[in-house]
């Protein structure tokens, strides 16, 4: 069975600082993907970043990067130079063969 665990229900960070959101997962799949999604208050869920499990290189998207530790089944999200618009719920997710699982989310608040 696939599981995704986000152990930090809430976090806060000062504007322009760096913050790391944690995610651990478990899967029996060999071919799977990992994702971070962002859900701003009262707005649509959008993809932040994705990582193919077969790739060793960590994915980066502008200010967002991941630390993918396959053996440890860890997939953390680092947000650099935090901006007020980064305030949102962040969900970690994994997809395998016809199975997509989301974590419970981390509420991130960026403080001015």
């Amino acid at each position: 069975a696939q599981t995704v665990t986000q152990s930090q229900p809430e976090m806060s960070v000062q504007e322009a600082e760096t913050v790391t959101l944690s995610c651990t997962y478990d899967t029996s799949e060999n071919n799977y993907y990992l994702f971070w999604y962002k859900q701003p208050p009262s707005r649509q869920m959008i993809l932040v970043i994705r990582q193919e499990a077969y790739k060793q290189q960590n994915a980066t998207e502008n200010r967002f990067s991941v630390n993918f530790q396959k053996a440890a089944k860890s997939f953390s999200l680092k947000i650099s130079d935090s901006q007020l618009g980064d305030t949102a719920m962040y969900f970690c997710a994994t997809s395998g063969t016809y199975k997509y699982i989301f974590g419970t989310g981390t509420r991130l608040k960026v403080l001015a």
Partner: protein
Amino acid sequence: EAGVAQSPRYKIIEKRQSVAFWCNPISGHATLYWYQQILGQGPKLLIQFQNNGVVDDSQLPKDRFSAERLKGVDSTLKIQPAKLEDSAVYLCASSPGPLGEQYFGPGTRLTVT
């Protein structure tokens, strides 16, 4: 490219009434998902379609919830009869295939009184 469309955006009903939600995925997306998101929680998959076939409905309360995807395009999710605990946001998402990025609609906020 048009995004995932959902309607209605908001719905208030009394318990034991029925309600239906509609979703129009991104054109060409074979996979369609319905999620239930209770306030403060992550999305819970209710049903996943691949084209017009059901891939996973293991968490769909089949005694009251039903869903269909007509001709592998639009989809409707129905609740009959509704219970208080069905109050949630119902999200529809689509993707080109079952493994990749999902594109979400704006959701339908259901309140059951």
